[in-house]
């Protein structure tokens, strides 16, 4: 049994040192293991994509293109284009070009409807389409999007 005449202060000191260093050791270990469970964010790059001459989008029409950065929905009027992310803001389905009197883009999943400017004109989508920076440069349609490697390819 422990010596009852042991100096209480020494015992307190020993316990304190033990507790503190134990906490440091376990703390550091825990921190490392938690960091392991939080994968680093994949690197990102803003990338420009050349989609081709203006004619790839019919005048007054719209197309959806699949790019490494994601799918982009482009509509054209004359020599001006408008580009949006083709991902419906409701639950992530891909929209389609469907020109009618009241809307231009249509989502088949829950019948969400957007106009040419990406605003919601019908259905459940909560927000307008996310715009994508686009321009016409020397007759070529150019869009700028963020490219991110898939997490398991990092």
């Amino acid at each position, binding site marked *: *049994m*422990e010596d009852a005449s042991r100096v209480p202060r020494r015992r307190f000191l020993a316990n304190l040192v033990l507790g503190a260093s134990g906490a440091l*050791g376990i703390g550091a*270990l825990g921190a*490392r*293991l938690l*960091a*392991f*469970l*939080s*994968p*680093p964010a994949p690197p990102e790059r803003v990338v420009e994509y050349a989609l081709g001459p203006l004619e790839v989008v019919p005048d007054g029409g719209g197309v959806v293109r699949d790019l490494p950065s994601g799918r982009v929905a482009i509509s054209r009027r004359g020599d001006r284009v408008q580009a949006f992310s083709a991902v419906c803001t409701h639950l992530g389905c891909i929209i389609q070009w469907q020109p009618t009197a009241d809307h231009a883009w249509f989502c088949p999943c829950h019948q969400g409807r957007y106009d040419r400017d990406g605003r919601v004109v019908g259905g459940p989508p909560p927000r307008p389409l996310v715009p994508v920076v686009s321009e016409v440069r020397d007759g070529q349609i150019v869009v700028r999007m963020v490219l991110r490697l898939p997490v*398991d390819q*990092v």
Partner: protein
Amino acid sequence: MSVAALRRWIAERVPIPIEALRQPLREELPVHLKSWLIWLGGTPLILFGIQAVTGILLTFYYSPNPDHAYDSVRRISTSLRFGWLVRSVHQTGAQLMIVAIMLHMIRVFATRAYRRPRELNWVFGVMLFLLTLGFGFTGYSLLYDSLSYWATTVGTNLVGNVPVVGRSILWLLRGGPDVNPNTLARFYDFHIGVLPTLMVLVLGAHLLLVRLHGVAVPEGDTRRQTYDFFPDHVLRESAIAIVLLLALVVHAMASPPGLGDRANPNVTPAHIRPEWYFFPPYRWLKLVPMQVGIWTSTAFVLAMLFWPWLDAGLERLAPGRRLGVWLGSAGFLFTLVLLLWEALS
């Protein structure tokens, strides 16, 4: 709310008598437990705990699909934060655990602690040893680099040579007539599901028997003093655990885990070998015809399992001659020779 009120709240809902919980802490252990030889028993347990934790962490990122397995291991080793550390500790911990169990077995053998009434505990112990080898084999197969893929293929093919039941066991192991996409998933399941469950059950039985019988007193030790479980023994075990962890962490930094080429089922590398702990049977099977090898290896394992009775029989045969010690030592040395022979060739 006072502490006493909290205690009453818990005691009403979880009616365990407090004294029953406090009892183990106040227990007094015989001093022969302080011997470093006896430490060898706790070491595999501590390492198993480390393996369980690092193993579970690895399952967050490992993929048991043949197309993704290799890449997932590569990803863990290179791009994840401290992935190399977790993987290294798990891999080295496995080797250490096998060494620790072997040392523990040698200690129990040398001190003849397997004798009546502890024979059953020895059997459980050998089962734990075999389970640990199983962990090593299934775990190694998960790397899916060319060496591990072929070592696993050869290893399972060997099982197919066992008479009568061989083909059925092989079918079960592979999940079909040959290695297929299911095989890796199956080995993964053995490694993280079946074997851990069996391990915990047998470990529970092993520890229970140790608690019931007490650790066998080495012959000639007549000391009668005792020391406290808490805090003395707990501090000792903590020190051992921290030393092991420290060794594993430092080793991880000194020698980060590597990975061979991706497994290619169409190309067999020139030198395939199992992991070092399978060198003895590997070398043996290269020396003798296949069926002879299978039968003798099985006999060897059975002799290990039922050693206490074998030893008791030998003792009756030639009392005082310690035939058991000679036979057991010879068996161990033979295994060691085979191991070194294979390692050096």
